[in-house]
């Protein structure tokens, strides 16, 4: 089976502090194409750090990483086809959308970068794909609800037709009822496009609902990949250690 992500002995440091202990140590992981893979752990365990490396946003790592069978090099941003094929959705959609650009303008940009001249039909299509009324294209981010904004952020990521979608706590800023809609959308997108989704969350219930496989992370150490049965057992274990302090 082809792998969407393959990592061997990856250690990650923070850009600003190269001499301190790595925040992720010797992580080894294989994520299959077409699966929804979860990274779960308490805040500060390094799960988002790992995801940012996969998105090419942090170059301070060593080890070996392959994304969609293309090797990455430390310090080099994603190149070539990977720049379209790998997309990321962040936790806070309000922070990731330009406050003074309309939704239409925010979504138009990736389409033009893809070389499309006539973007209007593409914009309408992607809005419907994520369950939004195309009339919202004329609105600004602050005029939308949190759930609508997160749908826009997902739409923006979908425009480049990614094969690997990285999601950093995509629903933790949302109401439970709005979260349900986004989780349904993610399941639908996977079924429709056969995308690989990598989901980072501290919410065991979200991981248990969505993921085919998952790995637990704690204090910079990545555990082995757990299949469905093992992951449900690990997540519903009442003796889950409590956080920091």
């Amino acid at each position, binding site marked *: 089976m082809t792998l969407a992500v393959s990592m061997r002995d990856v250690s990650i440091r923070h850009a600003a502090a190269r001499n301190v202990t790595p925040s992720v140590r010797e992580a080894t992981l294989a994520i299959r194409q077409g699966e929804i893979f979860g990274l779960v752990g*308490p*805040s*500060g365990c390094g799960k988002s750090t790992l995801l940012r490396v996969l998105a090419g946003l942090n170059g301070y790592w060593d080890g070996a990483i392959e994304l969609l069978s293309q090797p990455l090099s430390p310090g080099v941003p994603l190149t070539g086809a990977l720049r379209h094929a790998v997309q990321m959705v962040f936790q806070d959609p309000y922070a990731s959308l330009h406050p003074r650009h309309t939704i239409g303008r925010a979504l138009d940009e990736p389409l033009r970068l893809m070389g499309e001249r006539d973007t209007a039909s593409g914009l309408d299509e992607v809005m*419907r794909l*994520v*369950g*939004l009324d195309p009339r919202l294209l004329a609105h600004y981010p602050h005029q939308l*609800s*949190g*759930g609508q904004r997160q749908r826009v952020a997902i739409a923006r990521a979908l425009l480049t037709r990614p094969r690997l979608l990285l999601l950093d706590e995509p629903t933790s800023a949302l*109401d*439970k*009822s*709005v*979260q*349900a*809609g986004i*989780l*349904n959308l993610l*399941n639908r997108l996977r079924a429709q496009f056969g995308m690989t989704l990598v989901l980072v969350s*501290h*919410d*065991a*219930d*979200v991981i*248990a*609902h*969505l993921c085919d496989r998952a790995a637990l992370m704690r204090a910079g150490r990545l555990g082995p990949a757990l299949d*469905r049965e093992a992951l*449900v057992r690990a*997540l*519903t274990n009442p003796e*889950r*250690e*409590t*956080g*920091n*302090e």
Partner: protein
Amino acid sequence: MNEPMPTLPLIVERLTVRAAQGALVDGISFCHEGGLVALVGESGSGKTMTARALLGLTPRGCRVEAQRLLFRGQDLLAATPADWRHLRGRHIGLVQQDPRYALNPVKTVAWQVEEGLRLHHRHLGRRERRERVEAMLTAVGLTPNRRLLNAYPHHLSGGMGQRVMLAASLISEPALLIADEPTSALDEALRRQALDLIASLAEARGMAVLLISHDLPLVAHYCRQALVMRHGALLETLPAGELAHARHPYTQMLWRCQPSAATYGQQLPVWEEDAP
């Protein structure tokens, strides 16, 4: 129907908060009879605005109307700014969602926890205040050593910040604590800890708590009663333990939209008008 005792922690009758664009809270009525009572609903349902009206903190341009708004028998509608200053912080405490925003970033933990005593318990001496601060920090599960007392909010983890905030609002021993999403900035594991703490302190002090939350399983576990709000109105009032078997379809949806291992591969219910 029995007339509710006027000295209950809170009696709200037809509370309405009006802004230029319409009613944000639309004629809600409830009695808080002590213990933990939850106000649940989605964002924009008016739960935070209700809390603000109870604290006299509605934004400029909003008008608060009610037939009755009694806090332990005191008429809040007639409260002057001076009355509010006396009530707020002293008798009605507030815990907010995110310690990163609610704590003052340029003041130490000791200063912030002590503030309630300096403002509302002026007869206390300095040493006595410091002793109470240390006792309060211990009560919320922190160790009041010099390092913590002199720490600034950015030194604290989310869970510690939450406890400091709780200590700061409980130190003046309020009769009513309004907790506005006190756990949604916390990890799953810390959530239970924080609510265990609020519940046990409420019981030990005989304090009434109005918990604002959109997490129904959490409410069902900790609260006595749940008030479900939608579009500014009170949809239904029910014992929190019965949330799982609510009669109203909207409350049912709020309950069943919770993802879990059992819903793997299934569509979660969403409310029709929000669905694409």
